[in-house]
């Protein structure tokens, strides 16, 4: 038997097949949308002389993403967070290349922390890109570059800093130093780049205000990551009869400097920003006890809440050789996720608006505030000493760690800003 309308039948068959394919593709697309991860760039040195700092930051960020969000069903109704590492070797030039890569891979949010010179370069690149590509904006989340210029003259709507800037930290540090009557002669030494210069100028200015009797007996710069042996510098420190040292050095420059000071038999306190973790604490060991002091956020010992203690213990189980070197990464990511949940998406413009003036309670139970006018965070600051007494959470599995000696609540760290932000119109 011949079908009365063979053509119509073929057509209807084709149509139904087409419809099925269409429906299937829609559902695949919908599922893909549902499962598509939120991709976040992490741009820091993952090779070269400063690789240890960058890679420990990456470990903390990846762990936080999995521990707080991915293992609990993801964010935005089931999407996972994927951290994309971008190795900028801590060079401003490489940063530009990695930034282009981030753009071409469609990353819209970039975490970056190491080196203010790099942060400044990235800030310029991001601001220019965002001006030229409306609708394709990129958000820069700075978790550790502390040159104040980033939230003052060069402040940008697209840049948020989740760490106290150098002047805020030095304000706390010099208050602490000023209380020590034994200190009469201060030596300042630092890396020859923007942050090092800020540390030198600000320390000198603040000490002169707070303790005019302290004499600045040295103010020295050395090229960053180039010095093999700090002994010649230490010779000058000894000759100056200094009884304390301030330095903003980090990485190998910090270890070598502290080692040379210790080896020369000079028994004076060293006030620092970054002299702990990533092998530094283990290398300095008993020689650094009661001698190294750091200004930082998030007390390392004692840890105030059980929640953060558990976070540290679980991190240690997953990465026995590493430490939570920069707890503010967990805070920054959590605030970002809160902004995403609030806006229901990942659009950088909306996220920036949600982050402005956000108040957030961290794992330590502290309330932090992201100021809207310059995108600078305010949180409690601590001055800690390197010791092996009362240390529950040590660094580098060395038995030594940081113990808080001095504490300043967030509201007392607030400083005025000269930021005149150019806010994009939408």
């Amino acid at each position, binding site marked *: 038997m011949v079908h009365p309308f063979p053509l119509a039948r073929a057509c209807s068959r084709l149509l139904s097949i087409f419809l099925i394919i269409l429906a299937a593709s829609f559902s695949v697309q919908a599922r893909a949308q549902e499962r598509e991860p939120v991709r976040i760039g992490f741009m820091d040195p993952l090779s070269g002389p400063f690789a240890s700092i960058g890679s420990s930051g990456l470990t903390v960020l990846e762990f936080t993403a999995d521990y707080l969000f991915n293992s609990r069903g993801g964010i935005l109704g089931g999407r996972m967070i994927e951290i994309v590492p971008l190795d900028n070797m801590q060079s401003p030039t490489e940063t530009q290349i990695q930034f282009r890569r981030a753009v071409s891979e469609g990353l819209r949010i970039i975490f970056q922390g190491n080196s203010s010179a790099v942060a400044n370069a990235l800030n310029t690149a991001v601001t220019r890109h965002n001006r030229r590509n409306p609708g394709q904006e990129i958000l820069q989340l700075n978790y550790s570059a502390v040159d104040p210029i980033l939230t003052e003259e060069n402040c940008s709507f697209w840049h948020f800093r989740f760490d106290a800037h150098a002047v805020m930290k030095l304000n706390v540090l010099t208050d602490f130093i000023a209380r020590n009557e034994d200190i009469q002669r201060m030596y300042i030494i630092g890396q020859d780049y923007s942050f090092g210069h800020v540390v030198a100028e600000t320390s000198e200015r603040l000490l002169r205000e707070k303790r005019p009797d302290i004499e600045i007996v040295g103010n*020295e710069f050395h090229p960053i990551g180039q010095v093999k042996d700090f002994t*010649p510098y230490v010779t000058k420190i000894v000759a100056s009869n200094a009884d304390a040292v301030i330095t903003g050095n980090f990485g190998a420059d910090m270890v070598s400097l502290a080692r040379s000071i210790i080896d020369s038999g000079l028994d004076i306190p060293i006030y620092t920003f970054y002299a702990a973790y*990533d092998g530094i604490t283990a290398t300095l*060991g008993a020689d650094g006890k009661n001698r190294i002091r750091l200004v930082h956020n998030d007390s390392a010992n004692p840890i105030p809440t059980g929640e953060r203690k558990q976070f540290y213990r679980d991190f240690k189980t997953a990465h026995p050789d590493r430490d939570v070197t920069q707890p503010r990464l967990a805070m920054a990511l959590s605030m970002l996720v809160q902004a995403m949940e609030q806006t229901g998406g990942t659009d950088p413009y909306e996220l920036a608006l949600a982050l402005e003036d956000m108040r957030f309670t961290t794992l330590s139970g502290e309330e932090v505030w992201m100021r809207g006018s310059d995108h600078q965070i305010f949180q409690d600051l601590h001055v800690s000493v390197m010791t092996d007494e009362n240390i529950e959470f040590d660094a580098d599995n060395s038995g030594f760690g940081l113990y808080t000696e001095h504490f300043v609540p967030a509201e007392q760290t607030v400083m005025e800003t000269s930021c005149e932000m150019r806010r994009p119109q939408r």
Partner: protein
Amino acid sequence: MPEVLVFATLNGLVTGLLLFMLASGLTVIFSMMGVLNFAHASFYMLGAYFAYSISLYFGYWTGLILAPLIVGVLGALVERYGLRRVHQHGHVAELVFTFGLAFLIEEAVQFFWGQDTKNYQTPDLLDFPLFTLFGQEFSAYRGFMLAISIGIFIGLYQVLTRSRVGLIIQAAISHPHMVANLGHNVPLIFTAVFGIGTALAGLAGVIAGPVLTTFPGMALVLGSIVFVIVVIGGLGSLPGALIASLLIGLLQSYAIAANVGMPELLELLGLEFPRSHPLDDLWTLNLAQIAPILPFLLLVLVLIFRPTGLMGKREQ
């Protein structure tokens, strides 16, 4: 000021002689094979890391002996199974080979030992101040570094100039074909020289590791400066390498110690610039700030005025 001068000299000597240990191997290898070994400083790093790992189990002194041996054997293997095969493709291929090797070693070190600074300490035996001068200690370990470096120089010089082996090596450098025709195994000599050169670099790493810190960037920091020394001293010249090493060690050390710079120079010339001057950074520059860059400046000057280097004999 005298204490600064004394210590600046001592520091300069320690750094200079340490650099010489690296440069001596590099310069001899260059004069033999005509190729700059870019991976030379990486062998220095390997020496430090091997010694660190050995010291964890058997103590510092075992590491001091074993680590350079391991590095030397590694170096010899690299020459025998790597460089020699690449050699037939010319110098450029060799250069690229050693360049790649440097990256490979750096990655391998990060892979096996991680990126953190390693807690490699001086041995307890030498953990005391050798002497205290003007309130500053000079550690016994630094004295030990000085002694080893001087010993190596004397030993190397004696072997190369006085012994039969040294004569054959010197002959192989200038007339490899003639030496081969006389029945000597020239490829074996090359392998041995490469092995010894890298072992010296390894030894430098072993003794420098505890004081200059052991971390994956240590090769990078020292690598460039070693090339500068070899070029300034004259490619292939051992005494030239010694002079250049000491020159650079002392130059850097004195430059850091000296409290002079552009402000003093301008004052001398009776010039003055306001702080807001566009070249303010230049007018306030001091010598200590640029000390680590000075060797490169010297390199440029030497290349302009004496391209063969201080003691170089090779006509390019």
